[in-house]
């Protein structure tokens, strides 16, 4: 039976995955249930055509739903040799047949293959009805399929449990006099069509760096609002994000026209949005308030007509 083959050096003597699987899989799980059968009264020459057309080398012989024998290419060669190609299959088949049961473990089946040397075995259910056929090929196929399923499952599990290295951990592990990651995105003014792109690109980049989802969401929303402001009210500008040891800084810097009254601009509901911005569902005077809610720290500096510089800080939570 399944003896450990080719033991690897240094590894303890333990069951391999394949050896484990032959104790889990049943004959029924790997057998082919779709098969070609013949009747005992068909001739050997008919059997020859059947082999040719189906690319097989043997098949069960069935009479009134019951298995009565097995016939193979070997029987065909013998019939040719005996000049008995027209003889009914009944006379040339093997009627003493070794069978396997559908609920037997694969390990028993493999033992039978190596002990008896037949190339295929009919598979019966416990009512002795023929339900399938098993060959070495179907065993290999069955094992591979099971391996594939288990591999996929373990991959999925690994993906779920895989700990992304957090940026905090990264900074702990790496030493330099100065480390900085900066992301910079240009944002066009007076155009809301492309607005949101920088925020989502930044969010993707930070996600790849292992920033956790809740923080990522806050940064995404705040950056999106900042970007909408650049696109709605300014002559254009840029979004800059810097990844630091303690957290992330997002800046929105524009080229004007600047905010005359910052205090007023910060009030929820206050807006100077033009009609085209309002039509798109923006300009309700909530943007800055939203950003303030998302960020841990926010600073807004502006001078007319040079432009506005918004700085938001987000701290790592874990």
């Amino acid at each position, binding site marked *: 039976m399944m003896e450990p083959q080719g033991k690897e050096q240094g590894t303890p003597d333990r069951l391999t995955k394949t050896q484990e699987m032959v104790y889990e899989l049943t004959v029924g799980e790997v057998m082919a249930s779709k098969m070609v059968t013949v009747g005992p009264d068909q001739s050997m020459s008919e059997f020859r055509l059947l082999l040719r057309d189906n690319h097989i080398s043997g098949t069960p012989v069935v009479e009134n739903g019951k298995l009565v024998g097995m016939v193979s290419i070997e029987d065909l060669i013998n019939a040719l040799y005996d000049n008995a190609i027209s003889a009914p299959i009944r006379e040339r088949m093997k009627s003493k047949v070794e069978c396997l049961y559908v609920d037997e473990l694969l390990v028993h089946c493999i033992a039978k293959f190596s002990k008896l040397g037949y190339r295929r075995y009919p598979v019966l259910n416990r009512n002795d009805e023929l339900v399938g056929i098993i060959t070495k090929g179907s065993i290999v196929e069955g094992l591979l399929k099971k391996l594939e399923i288990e591999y996929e499952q373990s991959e999925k599990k690994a993906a779920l449990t895989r700990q992304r290295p957090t940026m905090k951990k990264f900074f702990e592990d790496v030493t330099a006099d100065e480390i900085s990651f900066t992301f910079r995105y240009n944002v066009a003014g007076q155009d809301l069509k492309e607005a949101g792109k920088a925020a989502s690109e930044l969010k993707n980049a930070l996600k790849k760096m292992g920033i956790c989802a809740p923080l990522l*969401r806050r940064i995404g929303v705040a950056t999106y609002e900042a970007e909408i402001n650049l696109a709605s009210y300014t002559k254009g500008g840029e979004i800059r994000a810097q990844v630091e040891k303690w957290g992330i800084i997002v800046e929105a810097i524009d080229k004007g026209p600047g905010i005359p009254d910052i205090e007023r601009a910060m009030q929820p509901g206050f807006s100077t949005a033009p009609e085209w911005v309002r039509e798109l569902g*923006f300009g309700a005077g909530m943007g800055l308030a939203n950003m303030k809610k998302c960020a841990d720290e926010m600073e807004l500096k502006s001078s007319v007509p040079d432009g506005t510089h918004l700085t938001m800080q987000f701290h790592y939570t874990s």
Partner: protein
Amino acid sequence: MKLIDLVKEFGLEVKAGSGHLDNDVTGGYVSDLLSDVLAHAEDGVLWVTLHIHQNIVAVASHKGLSGIILVQGRVPEQDTMAKAEAENIPIMVTDLSAFELVGRLYKAGIRGA
């Protein structure tokens, strides 16, 4: 409840993201102010709006919404549908008004977050 259940029950026309109708709907939110949605909609909620431009997809994506329903048979812009496909955000359309649709969603068990 999943989006697909609502699509069936209310005969919603799926305009984009048809591969993601098994998204779980954890609640609902109605607003035509994008900043309001950004501020108040929660993860997994279904958003009812009349906006058809592509910024709605960005908002839904940033907030992790389960989907968007456009009311009054409004047709999303081509860019909006393309972006929704890219960002995996389902967009559905109903002929009902927002008031009518929300009433029925509520009756079906969807609650405000």
